[in-house]
């Protein structure tokens, strides 16, 4: 286990050290102490390493992650795992706005709640939230899966494209062009897999699926009032 204390080491040195790890590095386990809400911790990683952050992080922790596993033993600030391409990010606490924004791949697990705009413009990422999510989540979500074990706030899935949204609790309101969908066997199987990977014991059958009604896919003046 390699340890880096952010009280003694600057952000640049921390990230440069993590970025220097090659695909075949033997130093696969890293621990970051005293993050104290610093921004851009462990962003831009691209190696199969496991980084554990002992505390809460500021903006963009694990931003654009590739291959790496990042565990946050606290809460995460805005834009955690934004534009993640692959790998896994697990937050023990809550996540602020824009969690997993524009993510292309990988798995983001939030064991607490996520704030507004969770999964905004997501492009293939899988996000599992053990708690609730805030308003405007999955806005313009393009693809991937957002799984919410608690409730969803206002305007879920507004203007979404092909992303699949699964909510176990209540949805305060659906956004423009987002509708309830049928849960088919393949969705149950998908949920089972995602929930297991996210260490969540919720039952797939308890979820409702939401997605795009595809009425706004091509501009039609008769739909103008929907925007």
């Amino acid at each position, binding site marked *: 286990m390699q340890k880096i204390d952010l009280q003694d080491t600057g952000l640049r040195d921390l990230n440069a050290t993590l970025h220097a790890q090659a695909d075949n590095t033997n130093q696969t386990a890293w621990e970051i102490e005293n993050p104290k809400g610093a921004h851009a911790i462990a962003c831009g990683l691209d190696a199969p390493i496991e980084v554990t952050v002992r505390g809460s992080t500021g903006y963009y922790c694990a931003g654009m992650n590739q291959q790496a596993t990042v565990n946050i033993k606290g809460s995460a600030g805005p834009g955690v795992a934004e534009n993640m391409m692959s790998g896994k990010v697990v937050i023990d606490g809550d996540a602020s706005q824009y969690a997993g924004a524009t993510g292309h791949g990988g798995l983001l697990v939030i064991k607490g709640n996520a704030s507004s705009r969770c999964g905004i*413009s997501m492009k293939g990422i899988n996000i599992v939230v053990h708690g609730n999510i805030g308003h405007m989540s999955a806005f*313009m979500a393009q693809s991937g899966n957002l799984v919410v074990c608690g409730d969803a706030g206002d305007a879920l899935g507004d203007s979404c494209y092909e992303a699949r949204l699964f909510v176990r609790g209540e949805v305060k309101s659906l956004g423009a062009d987002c509708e309830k969908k049928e849960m088919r066997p393949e969705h149950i199987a998908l949920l089972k897999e995602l929930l297991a990977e996210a260490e969540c014991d919720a039952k797939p059958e308890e979820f409702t699926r939401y997605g795009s009604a595809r009425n706004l896919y091509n501009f039609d003046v008769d739909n103008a009032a929907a925007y």
Partner: protein
Amino acid sequence: MKTIDDKGIPHTSPRQSATFSNDINSDIRRAAATGIYDIRGGGAKRKVPSFDDLLFLGASISRYPLEGYREKCDTNVTIGGLHAKNPIELDIPITIAGMSFGALSGPAKEALGRGASAAGTSTTTGDGGMTPEERGHSSKLVYQYLPSRYGMNPNDLRKADAIEIVVGQGAKPGGGGMLLGQKISDRVAEMRNLPKGIDQRSACRHPDWTGPDDLEIKILELREITGWKVPIYVKVAGARPYYDVTLAVKAGADAIVLDGMQGGTAATQDVFIEHVGQPTLAIVRPAVQALQDLGMHRKIQLILSGGIRSGADVAKAMALGADAVAIGTAALIALGDNDPRWEAEYNELGTTTGAYDDWHEGRDPAGITTQDPELMKRFDPIEGGRRLKNYLKVMTLEAQTIARACGKNHLHNLEPEDLVALTMEAAAMAKVPLAGTDWYPGKSGF
């Protein structure tokens, strides 16, 4: 037409309304027939105060000129030296503005890279991401980081020579974008991670930051991911240039790209293009003033765009304090856009050479703003690149000609004192004297 009635009394000549002109009336008829606003490409077509309203004084007894073709007049510019380990070194201060693969064909993007590289300058990606052809043919490539994040990935980010965070563009300050379904080919759809054939909306705000304090952190993240190697530009529309430039500097930008309302877009509402934003002439001095007030003029570079067409425009922009310019529409014309050779086909589309602006429809006869494989075949990227290189060289020679005539051995040495204005409006905007006077509106003492 009868000009006199049966009793021999002359008719009053038919009088067209300035308010309800034939152009306006056709807009009304089109709106009434369709129920939808007009969408088009390009920048503002209305007449606005511009660099054409400025003149250089040249040299005389009080200032002496440099010898054309004999005495040196340098044109190089370094962009992003403040924070980046590897600033961009350009031979000429004319860059190619961001235009997307999707809006433009792959060969057109390749031609922009070829021409810019041959002329010693940079080109810029656009909404939709970086294509291998573009990276391969561009010696210096600026990667646009846009609200939609279509095609955005860290691998391409690290391949870029600079990153341009796009906050706005001059054609539509405060607006996002729309790539209509007919231009969404398999390749465009794959790069943007969306189904083929649907309209692709580009957001007007970034998904994971809001305001200047967040922007500062976003810049930090991008620097950390790219190892503080490449410059970070911030592109803003010419809305509130003094404050926007001030905030971009505060957020840590290495360079500011400032785009006036004549700057083009691939597609947006005509009402947006013509009625939102400010002319390029009006935005440069407040932006320069902001940099000067912060002690950052010439340390953080100002790249001005929006209707730059000639070496005279380049020289005027630089005299007013810009470090470089960017061209978009002019570069497309150099490639062959709106060329008279396609007049018959423009007529078929209900338009004419010079007026064709339905770039979003993907039926460009010149094969540039299209994804149609047959139309794309009409465009040769090698020839297009050669034409762009020639055009960039001519613009540079023109700017040097003017600079030498003003006694300057570098384009950066041009200054506002080299200029006069032909109109009161231009004098007020550029803060240079009205020709024949030593006064401009707003100058104290009057």
